[in-house]
């Protein structure tokens, strides 16, 4: 089995490759990872299956080969067997599509695509967690700075400053970090010597 993975995200592509190797350990799959698709790869690598990230603009290039394959030695076609519509749908939802050469074993194709979809979904969930952690950290810093301003300008303790922020957030129905951000914005306007 010879698989070409096209993904601008190398970490994700490596994770897909690792998943395929683990699943098809006995068959010693040959896997090539490229950030972009070039026509010559079909000749040089001669893949049975191409896995491509939906976020790669190159997907339309690969797709077009089923229509006009005069300049490529080996037509790659999209797998559209309805019996496997489910794995294809899950893959598109996770952000990955697959192309296979004629005659490639549909069961094997389905298992590879399922692994790819799982790895894509896993990476997305890791990224979401990371983004959320970053946002949480940024929000905490904003809240700390707003507390500091309230403590200084109104002579409050840290606890009182936080309670004031929280009360205002509840009264206005907005997140506490948004209230804190407003205080920072206004305090920048009011701070003396701004000119």
């Amino acid at each position, binding site marked *: 089995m010879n698989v070409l993975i096209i993904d601008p995200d190398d970490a994700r592509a490596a994770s897909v490759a690792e998943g395929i190797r683990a699943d098809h350990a006995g068959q010693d799959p040959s896997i090539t990872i490229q950030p972009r698709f070039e026509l010559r790869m079909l000749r040089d690598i001669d893949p049975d299956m191409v896995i491509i990230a*939906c*976020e*790669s*603009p*190159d*997907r*339309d*290039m690969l*797709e*077009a080969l*089923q*229509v*006009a394959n005069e*300049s490529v030695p080996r037509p790659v076609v*999209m797998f*559209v067997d309805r019996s496997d*519509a489910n794995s*294809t*749908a899950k893959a*598109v*939802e996770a952000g990955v*599509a697959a192309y296979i050469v004629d005659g490639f074993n549909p069961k094997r194709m389905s298992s590879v695509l399922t692994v790819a979809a799982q790895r894509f979904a896993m990476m997305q969930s890791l990224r979401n967690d990371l983004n959320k952690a970053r946002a949480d950290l940024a929000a905490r810093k904003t809240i700390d700075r707003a507390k500091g301003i309230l403590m200084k300008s109104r002579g409050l303790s840290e606890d009182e400053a936080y309670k004031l922020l929280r009360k205002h957030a509840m009264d206005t129905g907005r997140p506490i970090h948004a209230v804190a951000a407003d205080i920072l914005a206004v305090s920048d306007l009011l701070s003396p010597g701004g000119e």
Partner: protein
Amino acid sequence: MDVKIAYSPLNDAALLLVAEALGFYDSEGLNVTLSREANWSTIRDKLAYGLVDAAHILAPMPFAAALGQGPSMGRIIAPIALGANGNSVLVSAALKARLEENGHPARSLTGSARLLAREVDRRRKSGEGRLVFAIPFTYSPHHFVLRHWVASAGLDPERQIQWVVVPPSRMADMIKDGVVDGFCSGSPWPQTAQLKGRGEILFSDPDYWSLKPEKVLGVRSAWAEENPDAVIALVRALLRAGQWASRPGNHQDLVRILARRAYVGAPAEAIALALSEHGSGLVLDPETATYPWISHAKWFLGQMVKWGWLTAEHDFDQLARHIYRPDLWRIAASSLGLNCPIALEKEEGGHAQPWSLPAQPHDIAMPPNVLFDGGVFKCA
């Protein structure tokens, strides 16, 4: 009502983007989530698998898919066109210079096609390879425009030109590397390439056809049947976006909205160039450029037959009416007090001057509607 809509980052997604930026979806009671997609194949698949409810699509896509050309996209209806025109053709500086050796390639397409034919002949005699032209998708208006242009000088587009599908984001580099000699793409990619010195724009959509159909809103038929009110609300939001976007006073704001990173995300200079008077001719006016004419659908089907992708043994009239839905456009437009064309089909081409289109309650003042070769397309 939640609605998921996919789009490709191009100027001609303007109605979808403006409707979000100015809150027209909200005021129509729709909670729209837009998703920006990197290629047409993924947009097609997301429609096919119900991952989105509607999408900005190339007008020929649902016809090609319905006729078994390529993978399925499920049953799709098009209740509104997303404007007219918007594409440009750019050629490499080397090809431009070759064309100029034989005369001045004015904006007349018949003239530039003749110069192109001479260059094709010269290359053949000197044993050079075929010219390579890039398009963004096989079933695209871009492909039809280039083929028609090439064929107008007697060239055989099938044998004498090499066609490649390339994402617009890579076209400029391929021109620079000499891999392709020219490309047709939606704005602002040709303008971005020209500003970077990667070739020159030879002509734009209006030079080919003054009011050329291009993208439509493709809606999943199953979703539309379950949510008939939401479909009308969605078309209303887009018509309102069209009213806003076609007002000259809003031009600068339109450029700013499109240039946002989350939207088209291209340099404002390229977007503004494409939307300028001698740009790509994008028309967003609801009454003149968003009605889904059955005659447009048939023109696209006719192109697919003309280039040998389809045999004529299909019920094209029925197919056109299943996909294009001027009846839904009319419900939405009349509720906004817009004038609605009476006919479902019209002759395409043949109006060199502005003309009056019979409509209710008032006739619509139409801009010229001419094809470069003077052809008139009549629905049989």
